[in-house]
């Protein structure tokens, strides 16, 4: 951390939030760090830790109802916070560039990509249109984008998410910025896509000697990218160290917790790379791993009681008429009390599969049997009893819970609807359910918006439990949650599974999470199950080629991994 040639110095930065009554409350306090050219400093923390706020503040920008209250942001000897808004606007785009979390949302959908990439350069008169176009093409080339000559003529919706994210990098690099800020640039991407994007970014930063801030909640990714890591919690700095130091020797308990929460696949075969000391230490601390332990227990129990609960035979489904088949000839079996993990990338059809089982979507072909009976295709036609037996837990608890209902009503309704439970009995049961998902009884009169993401997901799950079902379909229920919260939810699920003997269909894109929970794994790709086997078998080599790609794409919690993996491609014949 050499302060002499640092491009960016952030000193004692504070940001306040202003509420409707004009009262201010600090949300970020006393942040200081600096970055040298070609270096990447990463801001890591959970949601609400202020990492995005800090990164935006380094551009002199604060979100609505926020205000930078104190500190300095010195970019090459000039304090950005002393500039007025038009001066600062001049810096943005040319000296400082930004890559937003979701390129799909951040690109203007009404303008062509090329126009947006070259917009500021041309507008400022830094380049002529021809020069700008040439530079854009060369950047597309560097970022490994297909058809660099013509991709600029497309509109954002015409290219894939991974490409858009890289195009945004091109947009950012257009005017040779000194400072590049990346806010969770790969969070919205599939693991296999993520690698290419990360590699492209890193190469570019090193080559162009840009100082970069990399914001993420994903420690494993951060470790691949960052030279220094700044851990944030509740708007305060927890720890600022070089990446290797953090991995080897985290000073703070909180950093350690974050590291522990990163789900690491423990492959049955010998890992061909030695675990880092820190990871190894973390792994040691966990033994005996309760997760692993109960998985084993369950396998045993399932063996003992292997009644078939749900059978899907040759299920095919499509949206619209016949244009896009999303499920092709799926057959699947779920035993009583068994947990099936369904894994796949976006567009693999895994969510559709869950919706077909629950009756939210009508298969065009095939049939679903539940407890030996053929189920009707739509939930409208299913009996109330059938509906009760199969519960569906939506991915986003925020949207799956009616914002106008109190928790009492959210949990009370299935009780009344399925079990005819009202009044005092219902209330007692609700408290019991809250207790089951480890929430206190006082939540009963709250509205969903008064709960945190993790609490909401618990309520969401409790609603499924209220029906006392045989099968719960969980659709990506941890993917929107912070690592620590997600870990707690998974533990809750495992705990409940043991206590209640409910079967789960657990849908996720995250192999390491699923593997902790599932007895069997179904790997899906393009609407087909490419592999279906006991979890142990799936994870044990030889892998199916696609499964291997997925496994290899999961960032490992050690430095240097990103450089090692290359050319991960899956080409089914």
């Amino acid at each position: 951390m050499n302060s002499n040639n640092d491009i960016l110095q952030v000193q004692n930065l504070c940001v306040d939030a202003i509420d409707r009554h004009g009262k201010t409350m600090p949300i970020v306090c006393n942040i200081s760090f600096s970055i040298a050219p070609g270096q990447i400093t990463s801001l890591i923390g959970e949601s609400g830790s202020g990492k995005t706020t800090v990164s935006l503040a380094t551009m002199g920008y604060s979100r609505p109802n926020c205000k930078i209250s104190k500190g300095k942001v010195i970019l090459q000897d000039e304090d950005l916070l002393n500039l007025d808004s038009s001066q600062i606007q001049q810096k943005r785009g040319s000296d400082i560039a930004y890559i937003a979390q979701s390129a799909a949302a951040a690109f203007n959908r009404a303008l062509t990509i090329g126009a947006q990439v070259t917009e500021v350069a041309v507008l400022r008169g830094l380049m002529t249109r021809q020069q700008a176009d040439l530079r854009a093409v060369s950047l597309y080339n560097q970022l490994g984008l297909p058809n660099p000559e013509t991709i600029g003529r497309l509109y954002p919706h015409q290219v894939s998410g991974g490409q858009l994210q890289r195009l945004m990098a091109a947009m950012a690099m257009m005017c040779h910025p000194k400072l590049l800020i990346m806010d969770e640039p790969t969070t919205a991407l599939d693991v296999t896509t993520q690698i290419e994007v990360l590699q492209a970014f890193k190469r570019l930063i090193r080559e162009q000697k840009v100082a970069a801030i990399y914001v993420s909640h994903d420690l494993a990714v951060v470790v691949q990218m960052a030279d220094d890591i700044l851990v944030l919690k509740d708007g305060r700095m927890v720890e600022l160290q070089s990446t290797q130091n953090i991995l080897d020797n985290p000073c703070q308990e909180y950093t350690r917790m974050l590291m522990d929460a990163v789900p690491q696949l423990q492959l049955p075969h010998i890992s061909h790379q030695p675990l880092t000391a820190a990871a190894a230490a973390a792994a040691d601390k966990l033994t005996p791993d309760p997760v692993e332990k109960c998985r084993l227990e369950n396998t045993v129990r399932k063996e003992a009681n292997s009644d078939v609960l749900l059978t899907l035979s040759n299920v095919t489904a499509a949206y619209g008429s016949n244009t896009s088949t999303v499920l092709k000839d799926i057959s699947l079996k779920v035993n009583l009390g068994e947990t099936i993990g369904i894994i796949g990338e976006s567009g693999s059809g895994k969510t559709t599969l869950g919706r077909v089982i629950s009756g939210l979507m009508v298969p065009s072909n095939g049939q679903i049997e539940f407890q030996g009976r053929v189920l009707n295709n739509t939930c409208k036609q299913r009996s109330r009893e059938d509906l009760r037996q199969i519960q569906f837990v939506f991915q986003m608890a925020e949207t799956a819970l009616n914002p106008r209902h109190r928790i009492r009503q959210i949990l009370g309704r299935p009780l009344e609807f399925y079990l005819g439970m009202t009044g005092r009995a219902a209330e007692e049961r609700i408290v019991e359910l809250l207790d089951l998902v480890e929430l206190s009884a006082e939540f009963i009169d709250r509205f969903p918006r008064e709960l945190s993401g993790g609490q909401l997901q618990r309520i969401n799950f409790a609603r499924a439990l209220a029906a006392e079902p045989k099968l719960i379909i969980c659709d990506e229920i941890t993917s929107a949650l912070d690592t620590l919260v997600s870990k707690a939810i998974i533990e809750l699920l495992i705990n409940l599974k043991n206590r209640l003997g409910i079967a789960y269909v657990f849908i996720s894109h995250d192999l390491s999470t699923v593997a902790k929970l599932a007895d069997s794994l179904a790997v899906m790709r393009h609407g087909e199950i490419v592999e279906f086997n006991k979890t142990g078998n799936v994870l044990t080599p030889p892998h199916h080629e696609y499964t291997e790609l997925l496994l290899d794409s999961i960032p490992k919690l050690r430095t240097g991994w990103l450089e090692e993996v290359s050319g991960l491609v899956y080409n089914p014949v």
Partner: protein
Amino acid sequence: MRNIQSKSSPFRDLLQNLTPTAIICLSILIILIVLAIAAPWVSPYQPTEILTDESYHLMSDSMLLGGDYLGRDIASRLIYGLQITLGVTFVVTVLAFFTGCLLGFLAAVLGGIFDTLLSRVIDALIALPAIMIALIVIASLGSSLPVLIVTLALIDSTRVFRIARALAMNIVASDYVEAARVRGEGLKWIIWHEILPNALGPLAAEFGIRFTYTILFMSALGFLGLGMQPPHADLGLLIRENMQGLLFGSYAPLYPALAISLITITINIFIDWYLQQLDSALPSEF
């Protein structure tokens, strides 16, 4: 996270966020409503009482706002006019919202042929100028208060239908309605417990907007001679019947106009504030 400790209700939250402008608007509205309700007690004279044979009597101690074209007290007529305008408009808007929302929600939830048919008919009704529908209906059924109310409500309900349907379409596509569907809930539950509470915010805003449109539309009908029955006069009719006063420099038509403006502006500003409570905030650099 907002204030997890204390129990809160959406209503209490709203009240806590009242801005001075919103408070002023709300107070004006409340004063107007109270005036309207308390008309028999606060109005200095009977609205029909003829006090002088002079048209457009000037403002005086006995006639606070002066006299109208027939020699009646403007202040008294204004207060009663307020009562009629607010009363009729309220009934019309409530009726329109009841039918419009019910049909709109049904169309959104049921979809299919019901939605298509209903939407086409409503489209057709919207394609016809409101004034034309009003003319034809009132010509067919005769001009009376119930006919007037039903006609206005019919016209309004077509507009409400569109909004209610669009809102419900969004809500129906939400996860929590899917959750209710997969639970096996029926139409009634979905409309009453899932859609309605969530559409209430935007609908309340629309209620205010339609309310003001109804007042203005009623005035236009009054201009064409299809409005209220005399001697009762809504604010629009009060303007219309005293419009000649402008020739004599009388302010008689301006008071009711002012009242309409007050209602419209306060309602709209109040709604703006209310919608702001629902909306997300904007980038601060704007």
